[in-house]
C-alpha cells in the first residue's frame, strides 16, 4: 500500500460490505481488495451473508400481522396518550396524617405513581368485554392472588357507601415489579380504579396528593408497605371523598 493512503482496517472492510463508505474510501478499499484475494473472498462471503439473511427473513414483512399484535397499543388517540404521559402535575397535597415519612423515600416511591395509575386507568376503563381479569364474583380468589403476586396483603376496599361496586381486578406490570388494579363502577356507569404497588417496608405514610393526568384525576398516597392511587374521570372533590373512604376502609 502506498504510504499516503490510510491503512485499510477490518472496520473499513465491513463498511465496504455494507456500502457505507464514501466514494474515495471505497476506491481505496477496492484497490486493496485487488491486491488481497483472501480479504476479497471474505468480503464476497460477507456480502452473500447479507443477501442470504435478507432473503431468509424479508418474507416476514409480507405476512399479515396477527391480531394480538395489532391491538397491543392503547385504544385512545396519540395526543391523548402523549398528554397523559408528558404531564405530571402534582397538585396541592391534602394531608391529615400525624406523621409523614421522610420525604426522599416517599418521593421515590411516588414519583411515577399517578402517571402509571392514570395510564392503567385509561387503558382498562373503556373495556366493555374484559375490564378485569378476575371479576368480583371471585373476590376472595382475586385478593389472594394479587396478595401473592405483590408479596403483600392487599385488600379490595368496599366502596358501596360511596356508591361504587367492585367489578374485579387485574395484575399489571409496574416499574419495579407487579402492580394491581381494582376496578369499581357506580350505577351510572362511572368507573374508578384503585392502583396498588409495593413500597419499601419502612415507607411510612404520606399525605394524600393530587395529580391531574389529562382528563384523569388521581389521588395517591403511601400507607405502610403499599402505594395507592385512586383514579377517575370525575370531579376532584367527589374523588377525594372516595379516596378518604378507601383509606378508612383499609385502616378501620
Amino acid at each position, binding site marked *: 500500500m502506498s504510504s499516503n493512503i490510510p491503512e485499510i482496517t477490518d472496520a473499513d472492510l465491513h463498511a465496504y460490505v455494507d456500502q457505507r463508505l464514501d466514494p474515495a474510501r471505497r476506491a481505496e478499499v477496492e484497490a486493496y481488495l485487488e491486491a488481497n484475494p483472501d480479504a476479497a473472498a471474505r468480503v464476497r462471503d460477507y456480502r452473500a451473508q447479507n443477501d442470504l*439473511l435478507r432473503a431468509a427473513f424479508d418474507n416476514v*414483512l409480507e405476512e399479515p400481522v*396477527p391480531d394480538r399484535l395489532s391491538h397491543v397499543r392503547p385504544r385512545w388517540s396519540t395526543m391523548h396518550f402523549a398528554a397523559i404521559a408528558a404531564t405530571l402535575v402534582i397538585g396541592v397535597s391534602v394531608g391529615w396524617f400525624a406523621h409523614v415519612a421522610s420525604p426522599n423515600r416517599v418521593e421515590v416511591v411516588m414519583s411515577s405513581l399517578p402517571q402509571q395509575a392514570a395510564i392503567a386507568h385509561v387503558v382498562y376503563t373503556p373495556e366493555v368485554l374484559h375490564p378485569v381479569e378476575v371479576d368480583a364474583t371471585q373476590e376472595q380468589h382475586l385478593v389472594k392472588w394479587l396478595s401473592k403476586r405483590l408479596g403483600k396483603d392487599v385488600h379490595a376496599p368496599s366502596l358501596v357507601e360511596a356508591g361504587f361496586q367492585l367489578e374485579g381486578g387485574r395484575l399489571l406490570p409496574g416499574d419495579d415489579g407487579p402492580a394491581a388494579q381494582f376496578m369499581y363502577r357506580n350505577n351510572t356507569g362511572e368507573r374508578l380504579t384503585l392502583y396498588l404497588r409495593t413500597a419499601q417496608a419502612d415507607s411510612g405514610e404520606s399525605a394524600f396528593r393530587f395529580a391531574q393526568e389529562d382528563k384523569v384525576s388521581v389521588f395517591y398516597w403511601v400507607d405502610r408497605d403499599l402505594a395507592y392511587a385512586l383514579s377517575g374521570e370525575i370531579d376532584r372533590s367527589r374523588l377525594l371523598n372516595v379516596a378518604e373512604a378507601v383509606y378508612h376502609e383499609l385502616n378501620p
Partner: protein
Amino acid sequence: MSEFDEFIRDQVPRLRRYARALLGERSRADDLVQDTLERAWTRFHLWQRGSNLRAWLFTVMHNVFVNQHRKNSREAAVALDDAPEIAVNDGAAQSMDVRDLTKALTQLPAEFREVLLLVSVEQMSYEEVAEVLNVPLGTVMSRLSRGRARLRALLSGESTPPLRRVK
C-alpha cells in the same frame, strides 16, 4: 394526531422480522414483539421527543430480549439442541441455503446475532446499532467482525470447536 400510532403500526412488521431472525420460531418471536409493544407504550414517557423512535423501539425489544434470554438461557439452549430444524418460514418450502443459514444463526452467541441482524437485515448504521444495544461503537464493530467470521466458518462447514454443543 395518530402519528405515533401509525408509526408503531408501520414498525410492527420490522419488529416481527427481527424477532423471527433472532429467535427462529414464529410464536416465540411474536411473543417477543408483543412484550416489546406492551413495554414500549408503558415506557413511552421515557422516549425523548425528536429522537430516533425506530431505534428506541428496537432498544426496547433488545432489553426485553436480553432479560428473557438471561432468564431462559438454559432452557433455550436445550430447546435449540432439541430442535435442529427450526421452521423459519413455517413450512413454506425453503432452499437449503436458507435452512443452513438459519441453523447456523442459532449457533451464534446472541450478542453477535443481534449485531449481525441489525446491520444486515435491518440495515441500520453502525452508530444506530450502538445506540440500540447501548454499547460503544467499537463493540459493535468487533461483534460484527466476529459474528461474520463465525457465520462464514459455520456455513462453509468448518469445525469451530468453541461453538460445538455438548449434550
